[in-house]
C-alpha cells in the first residue's frame, strides 16, 4: 500500500464513519429544529429500531422487510414518547425538557435490560451486504459502507426537498420559530410535531439498523455512543439545521479517523480529547455552528 493509497483508504474510512454519524445527527436535528429539544432518547429509539429488526430476523423475516419493521417500530415509539412524555411539558423550560428526555432514555434502556439482558446479541447481516470490493492499491470498500453513504446522501436530498418545498416542511420550520404564530396561520402544530417525530424516529430506526449492521451487534445500551456523536455533529453543523447535521457528521467522522491515521500512536489514544478540544475552539470562533454565519444579535 503506497502513501496515496493509504490516504485514499483513510479518507474512504472517514466518509464511511461520517455517513453513519450524519444519519443519526439528522434525526436529532429535526427534533431540535422544531421543538428546541435535545432529544436524548433518540439513541434509544435507534436501539429499539435495531432490536425490532433483529427480533424479526430471528423470527424468520427476511432482511429487507426486517429493516422496514425496525423502522416502523422506531417510528411508533417516537410518536408514543412525544405523546406521553414531551407533549405535556412542551412549554416548560428547556432544561426540564432535556432532562425529561434523559429520563425517557433511562427508562427505555432499563426496560431493554429487563427484557433482553444487557449482553449484546449478534446482528446477522445477509451475505450480499457483508461483502466488500477490493480496489487497486489494496483499497477496500465494503457494501455496508456504500449503503450507508447512499442512505445519508439520499436523506439530504429528501429532507432538503421536504423542508423547502412542502407546506408541512415549511410549517415545521415556522413552528420551530414561533409556535403561536404558526397556529395563527392555521398550522396544526401538534400534527407537525408528530410528523417531525415520525420522520426523526424513522431516521433513528434506519440509523439504528445501519449502526447495528456496522457494529455487528445490538444491546440495550447501544444508543449512547451514537447519540453522543450525533450531538456533537449536530452542534458543529449548527443545531437544528439538517444540512449542518450532515456536514457536522462528516467532519466528526473525518476528525476521528484522521487523528488515528496520521498522528503517532502515542497521541492517538487522546483522540476524543483532541476532537473535543477542536470542537470547543471551533465553537468559540463560530458560535452559531459551521453553516450558520456569525449573525449579530438584533436588538
Amino acid at each position, binding site marked *: 500500500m503506497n502513501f496515496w493509497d493509504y490516504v485514499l483508504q483513510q479518507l474512504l474510512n472517514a466518509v464511511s464513519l461520517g455517513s453513519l454519524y450524519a444519519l443519526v445527527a439528522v434525526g436529532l436535528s429535526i427534533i431540535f429544529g422544531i421543538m428546541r429539544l435535545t432529544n436524548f432518547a433518540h439513541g434509544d429509539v435507534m436501539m429499539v429500531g435495531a432490536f425490532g429488526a433483529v427480533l424479526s430476523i430471528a423470527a424468520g423475516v427476511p432482511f429487507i422487510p426486517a429493516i422496514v419493521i425496525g423502522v416502523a417500530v422506531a417510528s411508533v415509539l417516537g410518536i408514543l414518547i412525544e405523546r406521553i412524555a414531551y407533549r405535556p*411539558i412542551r*412549554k416548560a423550560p428547556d432544561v*426540564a425538557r432535556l*432532562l425529561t428526555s434523559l*429520563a425517557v432514555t433511562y427508562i427505555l434502556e*432499563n426496560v431493554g435490560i429487563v427484557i433482553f439482558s444487557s449482553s449484546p446479541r449478534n446482528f446477522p447481516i445477509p451475505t450480499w451486504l457483508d461483502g466488500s470490493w477490493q480496489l487497486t492499491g489494496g483499497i477496500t470498500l465494503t457494501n455496508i459502507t456504500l449503503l450507508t453513504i447512499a442512505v445519508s446522501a439520499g436523506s439530504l436530498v429528501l429532507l432538503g426537498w421536504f423542508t423547502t418545498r412542502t407546506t408541512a416542511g415549511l410549517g415545521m420550520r415556522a413552528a420551530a420559530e414561533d409556535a403561536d404564530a404558526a397556529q395563527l396561520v392555521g398550522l396544526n402544530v401538534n400534527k407537525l410535531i408528530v410528523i417531525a417525530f415520525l420522520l426523526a424516529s424513522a431516521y433513528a430506526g434506519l440509523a439504528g439498523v445501519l449502526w447495528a449492521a456496522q457494529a455487528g451487534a445490538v444491546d440495550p445500551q447501544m444508543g449512547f455512543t451514537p447519540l453522543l456523536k450525533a450531538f456533537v455533529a449536530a452542534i458543529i453543523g449548527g443545531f437544528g439545521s439538517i444540512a449542518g447535521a450532515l456536514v457536522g457528521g462528516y467532519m466528526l467522522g473525518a476528525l476521528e479517523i484522521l487523528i488515528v491515521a496520521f498522528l503517532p500512536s502515542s497521541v492517538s*489514544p487522546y483522540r476524543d480529547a483532541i476532537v*473535543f478540544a477542536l470542537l*470547543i475552539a471551533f465553537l468559540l470562533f463560530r458560535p452559531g455552528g459551521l453553516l450558520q454565519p456569525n449573525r449579530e444579535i438584533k436588538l
Partner: protein
Amino acid sequence: MLKSHAIGVALIALAISAAWLLPAIASDYVSRICLLMALNGIFVLSLALTNGFTGVFSLGHVGFIAVGAYASGILSLSVQQKSALLPNLPFLIAQMHLGFFPATIVAGLIAAALAVIVGFPLMRLSGNFVSVATMGFLIIVNVVLINASDFTRGARTFTGVPVDANLMWAVGWLAITFYILWRLVHSPFGRAMKSVRDDQLAASAVGISVLRTRLTAFVVGAFFAGVGGSIFAHYLGSFSPKTFYFAMTMNIVAMLVLGGMGSLSGALIGVVCISLITEVLRSVERGFTLGAFEVPAVFGASQIILGLIFIVVMIFRPKGIMGDREFTLGSKARQ
C-alpha cells in the same frame, strides 16, 4: 450584622455534632447513606451555582469532581505507596504527602484553577453550546485520566487512598458549602448571576460583566466539586476514571433539576428525594413476598420507576420541586 454569622456558625456546629452522634446510634449502612447524601449535597450545590443561577447548563461538573478526587488521592498516598503504585511520578510530587484536610483544600484549589483556565473560553458560550462544550471538557478529563497513567494508573483502579472520610467530615463540608453558597446567592453577586441568566444583554447594559459573573460561579462551583471529589476519594479509597463519567453526571443533574435549579434548599431536597427513593427501590426491585404473592426480582426496575417519577414531577412542576424559591420556615420566601 453578626447575627448572620452566628446563625451560620450555629448551623455548621449543629450539623457536625449531629453527624458525630449518628454513627453511635445508627448502623454503618444508615450512616453510609447519610454520608453519600451529604457528598451528593456538595456535588449538587456546587453545580447549582452555574446551572441554576447563571443559566449556564454545564454537563462537565463531574470533570472537576474527578480532578479533585485524583489530586487528593495522589497527594495523600504515602511516599512508599507512591513508589509502588505510581513509580513514574515526578520527584516533587512523589515526595509529597498530605493529610486529608490539607489534601482536600489543595484538591479544591486545583479544580478551581482548572476552572479558571477552561472557563475562560467555555463561559463565553451559551445555551446548548455550553452544555456540549462542558461535556467535551468531561470527556477530555476522562481521556486524560485514562492515558496519563504515570499520574493516574490509567484505566486501572486507583487504590490505597486512606479511608479517612467519615460522616462528620462530609456533613461539615456540606454545611460550609451551603453557608458560603447561601451568602453568595443572597449577595449582589447572586443578583448578578440571576441577571445574567435572565437577560445577558440587559445585564451587560447595566455594567454586569457576563463572562466575569459566570466564570466566578464556575470557579467557586469547581472548588467545592474538587472538595467533594476529595471526600469521595477518601470515602471509597479506590476509584477509576469510569467512576467519574456520564452516570455520575446524570445522577447529579437529575437531583438538581428535580429539586429546583434556582434554589439551594431545593438542591438538597432533590438529593434527599432521589437518594431515598433509589435506596428504597433498590431493595424492592430484588423481589419480595407479600402474603401469598411472590414478586419476582426485576433488576433495573428502580431506574425505570425513578425515570417515571422524574417525568411526572416535570409534568406537574416543570421547574422542579422548589423552582426558584428557597425553603424557609414560615417567613417570606423571597429576600
